[in-house]
């Protein structure tokens, strides 16, 4: 039991903290385009310093850092209220998947532009009819010469309109059991068969998109991890996403908590104080779950199903935090404000996106506790 940093880790933290202080880009601008450009610039700056792919192996342009250093980075980002990097899906999912399952050619082709933010990535897993039941997806890929021809519909593809590449899960074998007939593709978004429609959310923003795929072509060399092996590839990616994101998510909660504390400072309302404290305590619990997950991964390799706890708890916390912020505004919460209205509305999806809380509870019950399947 030791939560202190090693001298090397302390040095990394101090270097990082100083660098952020010198390079902090300030407050993120409003609006999709401006915000995207702002985050891309920030990522490029970090990449020039070698820190965009902090834990990626050095041979692929990363810094070969430990997961602890990654955690330090998230915590320092949170402490300094630094923005997110633009290519978050490429950095946390696409890149690691290519590194783990890709061919040498794929590594040479795809990894560097992820880091530099020259090529953004999005994820094409979910479909309208297959939400929690991901493996029931219907998008089909049929081999035609040296390419697959893909037709189907995807939804909830974050940043699709900024993306060059889509991590696409499609059915290549209709005869096989539903988990066994899927293949993981890297699809070029810049082709006529791919139509992107913004999917406006209840916030009024279009953070997500729908993809309408009509005979899009994907060369066979863009299959990752083997034909009909897509479920395994995707699951590894999802597990990494969950483990990696756990730290980023908890760090973002700390940022929001600090902002809310700034607004509430000095309040004497015991109801508000109690609710704030409860969120603050749970945010610590979340942070410690992330530490615990890090320790397990470092010792045991693969992240376990316990990672589901973090995603579940994070959704609870972020909803409680943003609801408290709304309630603290009193009658003025009937009006849209600059910060909290959007966050409150956005947080409603936290318990749905990336695995609903119900599915996560199923996973904990069945895979951690060994309870029988419903």
């Amino acid at each position: 039991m030791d939560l202190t940093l090693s001298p090397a880790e302390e040095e990394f933290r101090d270097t990082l903290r100083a660098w952020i202080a010198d390079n902090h880009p300030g407050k993120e601008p409003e609006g999709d385009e401006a915000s995207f450009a702002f985050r891309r610039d920030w990522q490029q700056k970090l990449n020039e310093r070698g820190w965009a792919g902090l834990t990626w192996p050095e041979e692929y342009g990363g810094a070969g850092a430990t997961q602890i250093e990654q955690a330090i980075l998230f915590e320092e980002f949170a402490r300094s209220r630094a923005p997110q990097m633009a290519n978050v899906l490429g950095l946390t999912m696409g890149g690691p998947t290519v590194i783990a399952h890709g061919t040498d050619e794929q590594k040479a082709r795809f990894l560097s532009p992820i880091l530099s933010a020259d090529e953004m990535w999005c994820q094409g897993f979910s479909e309208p009819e297959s939400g929690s039941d991901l493996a029931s997806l219907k998008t089909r890929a049929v081999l035609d010469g040296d390419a697959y021809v893909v037709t189907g519909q995807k939804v909830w593809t974050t940043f699709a309109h900024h993306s060059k590449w889509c991590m696409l899960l499609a059915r290549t074998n209709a005869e096989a059991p539903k988990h066994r007939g899927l293949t993981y593709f890297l699809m070029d978004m810049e082709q006529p068969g791919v139509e992107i429609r913004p999917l406006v959310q209840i916030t009024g923003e279009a953070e997500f998109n729908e993809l309408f795929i009509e005979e899009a072509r994907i060369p066979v060399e863009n299959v990752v991890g083997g034909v009909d092996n897509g479920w395994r590839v995707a699951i590894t990616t999802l597990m990494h996403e969950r483990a990696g994101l756990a730290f980023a998510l908890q760090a973002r909660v700390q940022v929001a908590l600090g902002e809310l504390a700034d607004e509430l400072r000095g309040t004497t309302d015991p109801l508000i104080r109690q609710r704030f404290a409860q969120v603050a305590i749970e945010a610590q619990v979340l942070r410690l779950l992330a530490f615990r997950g890090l320790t397990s991964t470092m010792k045991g390799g693969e992240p376990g199903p316990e990672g589901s706890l973090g995603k579940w708890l994070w959704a609870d916390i972020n909803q409680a935090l943003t609801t408290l912020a709304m309630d603290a505004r009193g009658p003025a919460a009937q009006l849209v404000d600059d910060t909290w209205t959007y966050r409150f509305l956005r947080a409603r999806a936290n318990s749905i996106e990336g695995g609903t809380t119900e599915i996560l509870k199923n996973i904990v019950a069945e895979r951690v506790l060994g309870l029988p399947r419903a």
Partner: protein
Amino acid sequence: MNFDLTEDQREIQRTAREWLASRYPIARVREIALDGGSDATWDEIDELGWPEIADFGMVELAVVAEQLGFSLAPTPLASHWAARLLHPELEGRGTVAMWDGEDGAKLAVPAADVADTIIVQRGDQVFAVPAAEASIEPANALDPTRPLFTVRASGGEEITGDHLARAWHAIYVAAAAESVGVAARVTAMSVEYAKERKQFGRPIGSYQAVSHACAQMFLETEGARNVVLWAAWALDNDPDAAFMAANAAKAYASDAAVNVCRSSMQVHGGIGFTWEHDLHLFFKRAEANARAFGDSTWHREQVAATYL
């Protein structure tokens, strides 16, 4: 003893449900609220006698108010009711301005753009200010179906009388009844979706995580309707219980609508989070209405004060 609507009240309910459904199908609500379409049904509403329905009784008003919430009709009727309850001699249309923003402005005033008179609360006093003498600016409302305004209004004629305390409590009940309508509509939407939507080869409503959530929605909706009808009835028939009942109704119905909508968002999954789905309109009405005319915490404290 008959805790049910009378035949006349049922007739009012039916008329309201049908008329609002025909004039304000949800597609029309979206047009008016989201695309800035215009709404010109006040004359018809006037013919139905609804602006003066409080004269029939508070149960009658609550019955229509529930249907306003159920339909999300973007009409200024509820705001007018509030003004008329405080100012029974009101001529023309009214609205009520309560919350103090900075530098004397009143925040989140509904329907100020179409009001002839603005009833302004200042401390414990209430004044009637002609809208023409007030400064009225559009504000950015969370709930797009009920536009809000920032109002600056000084002077005016003070309204006095014994009716004021009852009027405020009647306003709470009317607002609570709207929340009941929202809760009822969203509970029905959720149940319907839970029957249709399949995952892992089964309707999601066959999973207890979903079915028990729907049962909870039903419990809170029924409970909210009962407490609102009781409070409405008490305002006309049981003055000893009426004020506590009105506070209880506003607290419980506000929470019920908010809880139902938040839970429904979870039952609907991703689709319910989209702009094109109607759920967010009900969700925003529930959240906004819960904060109008005193939030649940404030109303609960009033209830506590009657016991403790």
